[in-house]
């Protein structure tokens, strides 16, 4: 294990200050919880000259509803999000963030950081993917909205430019007729990376699914949506047969790899199992 690189530390108080620091400093890296970043620094996976700590930027700490969106500020921790009343409208997100890491990690780590780390195994990603989440980005004098899938450029690689800062995540307020669920398998019951994970989102009209969205973690280079599965579900009666067909299709729609956390075959097969369970839970939550 390496000692931490000899960086300079900056603790801006305002977003404008933070943006300016990120823009002007050479080889700067923002930090929120540090729960992903600090281990990377110790593995010498990255070696920034400057660390810009966003935790003191008060305007980035929120979970709120605004203009038809649920908005999660960059520094909102998993614990904060999990405890938020508002998030009950997006149960899959709560499923994920209330069990991500450990108590200690949830108290420190943020959803934004988890997403920017761009791990294919990031538990917050599949639920946010099924909510069509977007990433709010600022850079010097500019703001942009990026669909979440476009944030993920590859395993542990995000698509941000060095001067870009994610200020938060947002997704449309889900309709009353919607629900969702997140399921995962890990090598033990607590605090470890997911071997495979699945999130399912449904909008129901009677017994019919009017809108379905499905996402998986740890089965590709990035967390992914599964459009073919979604098509199969949309417009269908949500019965055992539909769900079985969707599960079968889920297995066919991923191409995972074998590593020490699980085999490709296992991950493929589990996409179907987890999807089935997530769908049943999501539909069950509506009744």
């Amino acid at each position, binding site marked *: *294990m*390496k*000692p931490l690189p*000899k960086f300079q530390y900056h603790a801006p108080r305002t977003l404008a200050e933070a943006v300016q620091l990120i823009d002007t400093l050479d080889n700067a890296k923002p930090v929120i919880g540090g729960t992903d970043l600090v*281990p990377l620094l110790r593995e010498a996976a990255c070696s920034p000259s400057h660390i810009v700590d966003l935790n003191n930027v008060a305007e980035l700490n929120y979970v709120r509803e605004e203009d038809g969106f649920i908005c999660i500020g960059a520094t909102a921790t998993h614990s904060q999000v999990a405890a938020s009343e508002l998030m009950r409208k997006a149960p899959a997100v709560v499923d994920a963030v209330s069990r991500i890491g450990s108590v200690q990690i949830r108290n420190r780590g943020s959803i934004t950081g988890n997403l920017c780390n761009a791990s294919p195994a990031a538990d917050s990603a599949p639920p946010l993917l099924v909510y069509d989440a977007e990433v709010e980005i600022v850079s010097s004098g500019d703001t942009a909205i990026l669909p979440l899938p476009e944030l993920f450029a590859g395993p542990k690689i995000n698509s941000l430019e060095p001067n870009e800062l994610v200020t938060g995540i947002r997704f449309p307020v889900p309709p009353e007729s919607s629900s969702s669920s997140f399921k995962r*398998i890990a*090598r*033990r*019951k*607590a*605090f*470890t*990376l997911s*071997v495979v994970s699945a999130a399912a989102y449904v909008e129901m009209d009677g017994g019919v699914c009017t809108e379905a969205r499905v996402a998986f973690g740890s089965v590709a280079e990035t967390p992914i949506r599964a459009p073919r599965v979604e098509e199969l579900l949309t417009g269908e009666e949500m019965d055992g047969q539909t769900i079985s067909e969707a599960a079968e299709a889920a297995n066919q729609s991923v191409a995972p790899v074998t590593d*020490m*956390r*699980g*085999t490709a*075959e*296992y991950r493929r*097969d*589990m996409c179907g*199992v987890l999807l089935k369970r997530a769908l049943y839970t999501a539909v069950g939550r509506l009744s």
Partner: protein
Amino acid sequence: MEYDKILSDILGREDFLVVGKNVVRTDALDKALGKAMYTADYVPRGTTLLKVYRSTVPHARIKSVDTAEALELPGVEAIYTGADVTGNNQIGYALPDQPFLNDEKVHYIGDPVALVCARDEYALEKAFQKISVEYEELPAMLDIDVSLSEDAVDIHEGGNIALTTRIRKGDAEKGFSEADVEVEETYWSPYQDHMYIETEAAYAVPEHGKVTVICNGQSPFLVREKVAHVLGWSLNQVRIIQALAGGAFGGKDDQGPLVSAYAAFAATKLGKPVALVWDRPESVSYSNKRFPARIKYRSGATEEGKVTAVEVDITLECGAYANRSPFWLWRQTAHAAGPYEVDNCSVDGRAVYTNKVYGGSFRGFGDLALHFAAETQMERLAYELSMDPIEFRLRNVLKVGSRTTCDQVLDHSVGLEQCLKAVRDASDWSSHREPVWEGSKVRGYGVGLAYHGISTSRSTPDWSAASILLNQDGSLTYRTGIVEIGQGSPFGHIKIVSEIIGVPPENIRIELPDTDSTLNAKPTHGSRGLMLGGTAAAKAALTLRENMVACASELFEVPYERIALVEGRAYDKEDPETSVSVRELAEEMYNRGYDPGAYGYFKAPKRFFDPETGLGVNYSVYTFAATVGEVEVDTETGETSVIRVWPAMDCGKAIDPLMIEGQIEGSISQGMGFALMENMELKDGLVINPGFKDYIVPSSMDTPQIEPCIIVEEPYRHGAFGAKGVGEPAIISVVPTITSAIHHATGLWFNTIPVRPWTMHKALKEAEP
């Protein structure tokens, strides 16, 4: 004398006052306050740091080591290589195959090549980048079969087989000819890392002609021996102070001497204090693991359920060095038939070098792999015979008078049958003979037994010593070389002392082992800490008691026999009003010429063992355990959970039931990890999961419901109050308990552990019609 009869024969009492009762450990408060000191806590700010520079290739000749550029760097204080070793550049534990600093060859990724001393981690890091080692790479033997193949390259002089073992008892072929059923399978049991939360560490302070090392080994005297050996010094020039250890499980028995030798060597060369604290990746990647083993096992039994013969072939993977493999392999060989009486046994073993991290001591010491194989064989035989697995075991289980694999007659202290019957009844076994389904999940019950010879195998002399000093104020100072690694043995000792001299445990202070003032108790391993160490404590206490009684007798002017020592007082049994406090008694002893200090030395009775035949008395005594477990398998996801465990143990005499439960519960958790989740991942000889992130150990969430341990007490004649060690049997029995419950639930047999979700899922898929 028979030490199990101290209470009746010497103390003249019927009831125990502290032994067998749950008494609060005297060390727990400091630990809970955060005030307990571990090795790294002693290192003052600004101490020179030491880091071991290690090979990056698994097998190579060293052509050159260039440290010149690194030595020029600011903050780098010294770099030592094998050429600097003026004492002995050899630290092999059982065989002389392990250089202290490798100067000719490297044998695994992580082999020590140089010691770098610098003022901080940054200077160390820079120095590491500037050291260059030129290797002539050799083919890496990364698998036992590659090592054993005809075109294998020798890892050490003399070939890739470090040693062989052999037992022939009865006539195996004759035994098989009498059998109605036979099963033959091959089992694989992998590496396991100890994953103690505190990593290996040593802090060495040199002075003229002497060095003091604070460390976290498991035997300060073995540490002293290794340090002195490497330095070429005499034992009295080396002082080892054993700090509390933050978990050890055997690993620190092997690593403690090594980290201490590195720190002491550098400190004496440099002439200033040096600290060596491993980080987690170093600990996982380079320290010894549980030895992997492949066990080919053939067993036969009659229709009546009697095992007639076993033929066992053990290939132990040493890794780069033999380390403790002779002891490990002999233990597996001597226990090969499992805890059963089998008249015809044929056992062969070999320990094979590979270019991987070496194996070594770990709780259960060889008996995990062995029992996983032996017990699964018993399950299979029972299945073939359509016999209840417990009933089948009861027909074969070791009892008083039975002969073990190595033909050792068990003349007393054999409580396995009682253990097995107790867990059978407690778990209501007979009502759970059908798997229970709920949705995709199925639950099953399994059973496992364990027997584990205490302390070292074969004829190795086994002894221990301890001392007690009664101070003028009546307080006591107790010294033992048995170390505190979480298990609490030293506290068990003072309960024994307390029972004998009638002074409450809280009045007895346990000093940290210090080789300058503590007597040699030999190592804290092989479940011997309480049995051997505690008996030495008892002997010291009996001597001190004699002196206390003699003084009280003079003081009260009554005969010896009338003196009782209880609850911090001495009194006349016939006239309890005539009494003095221990404080007053101590003062009188000093003034009247009664020795206030006592020393106890205990040697386990002589044993006979013939290394040629492998037959004889291998261990003084065995401890026994039985566990029944309930597991749940999710047949869709392959996830397996241990739901509930019923343990029973024959511990001779329970000195502290609460601490015994602690050992059993910890064992069950560690065994469950081994059976279901833990795995060392190596790629081309490099450990690629060197930390808690990917080396998965059980968490609080995985904890099964563990029922209160059923304690069976079949006293061991030569142990204080009859006590035997309790730290290991449950980890041995729980692994086959889990796999047998998995079989019960799913019908699947697993010959390889761990059974991880994807392993289970694959097996379930393959078993689908």
